């Protein structure tokens, strides 16, 4: 029947279109996750030091899921055009597995974004930051963060005054109310006015906190992985339902 043929062709066309979109989104997801993982100015060492870098685990899963979606989309297109039950069954099962992984990645990214509050970074900085040689990962990351963003501490230099810290154990309060990196430095890395910095004169020390500089990338990352992945999964859901319907109607 012509009508049935038309329905078939329309459904095939929709499924092919759906799979094309899935393939492109898969590539985009993989690219985005690769960017997050390899971003040199990111806050990965800080997250690693919190021992809760599941946001990065979510990004790694996103890379593989993205490529898998691309490959499966091609398989789906071939299966739909050839109306092969076997191919489409393989496609559906593999897609469901990929769906499950991507679901895990999205939920992980969203959950752990909620976990990374100011206090987590504050605690980690106070426990890990030591200006002694050799510098550990946390110290190096914080130094770079404070130099690049002209900020100090998580909430401000008063973090070092309000709480005890590993830094305070090795540097006395009178000479180092806050680390030297919080001072405004000249081109050689020497404080412009050390006394002004110790006094806390605005202009000779950085009085704002670094939390905004941290939470920006983390938020972008979590939103990118979690919500883009969610959108892809919703679209994939529709395509899979259509494919299942198509599969059940194929002659064999």
């Amino acid at each position, binding site marked *: *029947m*012509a009508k*049935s043929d038309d*329905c*078939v062709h329309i459904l095939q066309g929709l499924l092919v279109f759906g799979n094309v979109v899935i393939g492109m989104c898969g590539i985009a997801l993989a690219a985005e996750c690769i960017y997050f993982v390899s971003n040199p100015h990111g806050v990965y060492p800080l997250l690693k030091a919190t021992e809760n870098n599941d946001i990065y685990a979510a990004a790694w899963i996103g890379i593989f899921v993205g490529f898998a979606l691309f490959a499966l989309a091609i398989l789906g297109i071939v299966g739909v055009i050839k*109306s092969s039950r076997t191919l489409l*069954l393989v496609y*559906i*099962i593999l897609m*469901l597995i990929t*769906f*499950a992984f991507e*679901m895990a990645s*999205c*939920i992980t990214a*969203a*959950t752990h*974004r*909620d*976990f990374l*509050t100011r*206090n*987590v970074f*504050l*605690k980690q900085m*106070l*426990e890990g930051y030591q200006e002694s040689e050799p510098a550990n990962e946390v110290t190096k990351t914080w130094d770079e963060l404070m130099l690049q963003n002209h900020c100090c501490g998580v909430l401000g*230099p*008063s973090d070092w*005054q309000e*709480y*005890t810290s590993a830094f*305070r154990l090795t540097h*006395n*309060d*009178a*000479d180092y*109310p806050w680390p030297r990196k919080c001072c405004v430095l000249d081109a050689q890395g020497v404080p412009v006015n050390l006394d002004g910095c*110790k*006094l*806390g*004169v*605005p202009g000779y*020390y950085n*009085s704002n906190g670094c939390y905004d500089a941290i939470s920006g990338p983390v938020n972008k990352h979590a939103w990118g992985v*979690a*919500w883009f992945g*969610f959108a892809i*999964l*919703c679209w994939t*859901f529709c395509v*899979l*339902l259509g494919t*299942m319907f*198509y599969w*059940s*109607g*194929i*002659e*064999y």
Partner: protein
Amino acid sequence: RPGAAPGVRSLSPWLLTAVELRYAPVLARRSPEDPQLGGLTTASTFVLEQPRCVFEGFNNTDIWLVVALDGATSAFNITARPGTAETAFQGFPDKVPAYMTLNATLANYPCPKPEGEIAVLRVGSETSCRQDAARPSCNGPLPVPGPYRVKFLALQGSEPVAMTDWSVPITLRTAKPISSIPTTGSEHSAGMIALTTILSILFAILLAGLMAMLVFWGSDSCGGSSTFSKPESVMVQRYNTHHVYDQPAARL
């Protein structure tokens, strides 16, 4: 004795007539529009305004700063001489009720104070002589959070000629332990809950669809098998041979 200076009264009951100036030392403050000094009080230092235009007329005097704990102000005898064991910083606060430090002359406190200049005294900034008994007038870091009271004393030779009032009590900062930072109790955001719920529902529907597919794999029920035909299947046209003049039979 410059009795004509305003705001001055003589302490006649004392044998040594030291002039008591109506001025109390205060913590440094910038103009009301400017932000405070970040290091106004730290765990072991604090910053005072310089006594500009206070000791006018008292030339040839040494102006000392006397620092005492709040409850010990009455134990300070103005006949005490600086640079001796009874006013040595190193014995403060156990053996010495009040120590004298920050020696200066009137030339260090020119009057009037130029506009825009920060004229401060940082009490507690010298860490090198903290244990050095040979430097009793060391401006060492304060050992306890206080509260402290300070006053300025002008000595001519070794005789007191003028002094200010005691300041209001100055309390230093106390650092809280790192363990007091709360890191638990971060709520799950609404977005994360919505994302998890929706994805779980979608995944469950897909699994149900897959189950339905597999259950009905082999069966021809639901009229599915003949709904869509494979492209390579032969299209059989049935001809109604009995009625050659009738319309040709419809295509399949």
